[in-house]
């Protein structure tokens, strides 16, 4: 456990550096954007005077470095700032959306990870066989369809034609299990298909690599059937690379799901960030970027910790 604790401490330190880099990069590229929050706020009816006044009010006339420093100072004192677009605290805007995003991500992960693992393991067990080839084509076909098309096909079939599911993912206030199922079925299915293929291929590769290890041969020579050799012996040792691939895939579930959020009108953080870009809402944009980066780092950390937990050699610090 000491190893994990040390790892976490070290990672937190490095994460701060990474987050700083992200904030600087995002601030830099966002500064390339033409226009600013004042112009976007006033839109088509902007007069130069009004823009100038609003700009002053938003503090947009400060030099970029000063604005960055101010923002950073605020963040360090626990204040993520106020959205320029609607004057609400950024933390409040994000927290309501974050729970939604996490819910979508959670359901997707719950479904996609086991699905992908089963696909990958079966393909690895029968590597080179027809099953393996069929799975290869199947997983490739899954990634080969643009997700907006996939989502639209689902909507047409299950919402418009069959009327089984709602085309929009709204969760009523007094939602029961069934409501959740209905609301999440299609977005989760879409994302599962988008993500599983990659994870399945990685799982296959990782398991296959372990299958060539002498201890698997040993297990077979001890009289273990292939399935047991794979599940009991190879799989625990493939956990490291698998969780890594899973973590990378899942990190997509925070910021990468814009399209699913748009099509199912799901209020998640990805579309919040798109709004932030559109409105030139820098505090919100920065906060979203920080959030995604943190999410990514946490996932990678979880992956590394699971790899350590799964590997007694790393676990005991040997």
């Amino acid at each position, binding site marked *: 456990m000491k190893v994990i604790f040390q790892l976490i401490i070290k990672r937190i330190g490095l994460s701060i550096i990474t987050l700083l880099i992200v904030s600087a990069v995002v601030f830099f590229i966002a500064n390339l954007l033409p226009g600013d929050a004042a112009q976007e706020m006033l839109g088509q009816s902007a007069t130069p005077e009004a823009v100038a006044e609003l700009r002053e009010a938003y503090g947009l006339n400060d030099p970029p470095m000063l604005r960055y420093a101010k923002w950073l100072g605020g963040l360090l004192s626990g204040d993520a700032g106020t959205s320029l677009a609607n004057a609400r605290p950024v933390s409040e805007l994000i927290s309501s959306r974050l729970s939604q995003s996490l819910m979508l991500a959670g359901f997707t992960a719950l479904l996609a990870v086991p699905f992908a693992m089963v696909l990958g393991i079966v393909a690895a067990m029968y590597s080179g066989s027809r099953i393996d080839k069929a799975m290869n084509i199947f997983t490739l076909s899954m990634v080969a369809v643009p*997700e907006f098309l996939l989502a639209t096909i689902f909507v047409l079939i299950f919402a418009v034609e069959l009327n089984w599911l709602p085309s929009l993912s709204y969760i009523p206030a007094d939602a029961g299990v069934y409501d959740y199922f209905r609301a999440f079925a299609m977005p989760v299915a879409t994302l599962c298909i988008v993500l599983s293929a990659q994870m399945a291929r990685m799982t296959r590769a990782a398991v296959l690599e372990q299958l060539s290890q002498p201890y698997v041969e040993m297990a077979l020579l001890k009289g273990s059937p292939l399935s047991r050799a794979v599940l009991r012996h190879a799989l625990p040792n493939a956990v490291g690379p698998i969780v890594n691939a899973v973590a990378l895939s899942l*990190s997509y579930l925070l910021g990468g799901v814009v399209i699913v959020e748009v099509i199912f009108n799901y209020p998640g953080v990805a579309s919040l960030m798109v709004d932030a870009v559109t409105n030139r809402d820098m505090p919100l944009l920065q906060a979203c970027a920080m959030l995604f980066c943190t999410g990514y780092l946490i996932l990678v950390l979880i992956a590394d910790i699971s790899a350590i937990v799964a590997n007694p050699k790393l676990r005991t610090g040997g």
Partner: protein
Amino acid sequence: MNVFKSMPLSGKLGALLVAFWVFVAIFGPWLAPHSASEIVAYDVFEPIGGDYVLGTDYIGRDVFSRILDGTRFTIFIPLLAAALACSTGTLIALFSAVSGPRTDEVISRFMDALISIPSKIFSLVMIAAFGSSVPLLLTITAISYMPGSFRIARALAVNVANMDFVTVARTRGESRLYLAVKEILPNILHPMLADFGLRFVFVVLLLSSLSFLGLGVQPPEADLGSLVRENISGLAEGAPAVIIPAIAIATITIAVNLLIDSLRGGATYAARGK
């Protein structure tokens, strides 16, 4: 040709399909019976086999011509972008692998930072800032997938850097550049080729995602993803204008992967980026 003969059936199929699409990408614009932007029919979303081979699109343009014209974007942008992403990612990874732990750490953290910025939002910002153009799309997609390439290449390069033959070169007093380019690089080229295939698919998909957000190639030109997107309202009636480009994308990505899988003998590959 020997390579082709030694391939498994799936590889041959992949190679043939890739060859077909590359042919379309190169000669498509000349083969198109109509101009890609010309409105040829009043009826929209015409089915296959009418006056127009693959029907008409959402404003009555010839779908066949638009596919012939648009394939080159779906082939060449991803091809170049994936090549750029893999080559720069690999080069930076090589540099990182032969540099000291501190430089390596800084580069790795920077790449982590880049990975964590969602590629679609990055594209949105960049296109809003600079306006969409083929070179910019290339740059964006290349930057988006470079850190992933870097991760893989670095993992491979660090492994190779610990091999005895690199140590031998070190004891000879060779420069870092020599170690990176002459000793390590040739040994990670093959797995990076596999990574390249994967990244090609990612770029194809990112491009179609961008077209969904209205950020794709400049109209009236359209890559295959944009064709799917602009005709999506024809999906309900099963219009070939949306189905055929979707099938084209699928066959391209599957073919590239089958080809590359067979080139590396169906071997495994290392972790992937985003």
